[in-house]
């Protein structure tokens, strides 16, 4: 039995125009994991996913899916893998139902066996009512759902999603999150790339950050977030202020007269900040975390790699 769902060793990719996309990356994803692969545009995420899915030829290195080397057991590896690509990749002129049934057929699943599965997954993704619509008439969000339905129809053990919620509204994004959490809970290993770092923070247990073709971090989400020294808090004020108060040890700035933003160091207690604000007669109506914590770390790491 393979130890990892995905194992990548010294993976390199140099394109025909001499662009070096991957400089020998190593990556291991545990079975059952929900793994985030993050990186700025052009970092090498899509090249990595392309190689795993046989859409891109590697220049060197090894890739195994559940122990099946893509050089020697490609078809076995492929049958265990589902990929949701970044770009829409189905025929826009076919009906939703036909697209998913055809995809099942490409995996050797006859229509009679595929139909109940297709019905189930289309219903689960709220696409069943649109099964006879031409794909081109679907909205962007439904097209994304169709991509996921296609990738899951052969019940892969490893699902790779390349920015699945790009351009999708918040409601649908949350619906997709709940769906992905459910299939992960049922045993499917998931690798997710996304530009919405909140999404990675919400869903993933482990994380890899790739930049300029190298892995700059590969750890658990908890450990990564634990390295963050400063947390930002946003306070909604009861009364407007003209300028930000000055409190020693707590840098504050006023975003607007009713919104105060504080940077709180990890070794300081937020209670101390509340006490100081109370002394200044500043009443807080509500409080929330400032922009995503992961985002700060991500930018920090990518900047460090730049230098």
């Amino acid at each position, binding site marked *: 039995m393979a130890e990892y769902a995905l194992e990548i060793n010294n993976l390199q990719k140099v394109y025909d125009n001499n662009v070096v996309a991957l400089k020998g990356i190593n990556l291991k994803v545990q079975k059952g994991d929900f793994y985030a692969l993050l990186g700025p545009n052009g970092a090498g995420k899509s090249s990595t996913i392309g190689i795993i899915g046989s859409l891109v030829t590697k220049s060197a290195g090894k890739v195994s899916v559940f122990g099946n080397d893509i050089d020697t057991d490609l078809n076995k590896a492929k*049958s*265990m893998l589902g990929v949701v690509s970044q770009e829409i990749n189905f025929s826009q002129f076919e009906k939703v139902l036909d697209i998913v049934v055809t995809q099942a057929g490409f995996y050797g699943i006859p229509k009679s066996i595929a139909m109940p599965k297709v019905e189930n997954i289309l219903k689960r993704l709220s696409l069943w009512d649109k099964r006879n619509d031409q794909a081109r008439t679907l909205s962007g969000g439904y097209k994304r759902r169709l991509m996921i339905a296609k990738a899951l129809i052969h019940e892969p*053990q490893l699902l790779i999603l390349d920015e699945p919620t790009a351009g999708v509204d918040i409601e649908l994004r949350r619906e997709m999150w709940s769906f992905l959490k459910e299939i992960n809970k049922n045993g499917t290993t998931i690798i997710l790339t996304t530009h919405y770092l909140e999404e990675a923070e919400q869903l993933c247990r482990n994380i890899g950050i790739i930049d300029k073709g190298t892995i700059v971090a590969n750890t658990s989400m908890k450990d990564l977030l634990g390295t963050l020294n400063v947390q930002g808090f946003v306070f909604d004020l009861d009364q407007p202020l003209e300028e930000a108060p000055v409190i020693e040890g707590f840098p504050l700035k006023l975003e607007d007269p009713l919104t105060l933003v504080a940077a709180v160091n990890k070794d300081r207690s937020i209670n101390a900040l509340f006490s100081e604000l109370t002394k200044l007669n500043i009443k807080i109506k509500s409080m929330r975390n400032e922009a995503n914590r992961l985002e700060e770390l991500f930018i920090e790491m990518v900047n460090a790699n730049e230098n």
Partner: protein
Amino acid sequence: MKTNFNVTVSLWTLTVKEVRRFLRIWVQTLVPPAVTMSLYFVIFGSLIGPRIGSMDGFDYIQYMIPGLIMLSVITNSYNNVVSSFYSVKFQKSIEELLISPMPNWTILLGFVLGGVCRGVLIGIIVFGVSLLFYPDFTVANPLLTVTVLFLTSILFSLMGFINAVFADSFDDISIIPTFILTPLIYLGGVFYSINILPDVWRSVSMANPMLYVVNTFREGMLGVSDVSISFSLGMIITFILVLSVSCLYLLKKGTGIRQ
């Protein structure tokens, strides 16, 4: 998880998808050859044909029928595969195939079978149209006719596949059919026997591969030919084998489909 991969199902799925594609746009794929060929039969067969007289001992319209069927079969087999395979590249739905465990030979065969289905169906339609203008037509050698019909369709489907593999734009898929294929077919004995040409042009015509395809089919339908049938059949089969191996090599290498 599905591990027992059924290659027959995947081949059938791709073939059905290809057939469904050209049937869905039947106004663009099935009707034009019928209309165009009707015009050929009216103008060259019924109006001008009687003034030309006979060709190799047959009424001119009768002589034209095998040539016009081949013209339609060749162009439609070629165009079906070149446009379909380039479209899946253009729309990126080629990824559906490349990600799946389908072996390369099933991908090639699926597209070729799609081209053959369209080519043969068009051949039947054009033959049906020709019967409206020449109802007494009888096929001299049905076995040879059907064999050449299928072999020709396979051959030109494979050519269309190679064209699509290398195509980077929609212009690239029309250049070869327009500037190479069509002139060679027209000069390959669709409308005339090379015996009416001066010696020089007859020799030049012998270098045109279309001449062998058209004349082998004419041998099947009428029982006359300007070329050796066994040589022609041998060359068609040889080219099919060479092109099949070339297509499989291109697929394995990922030319035009993998980065």
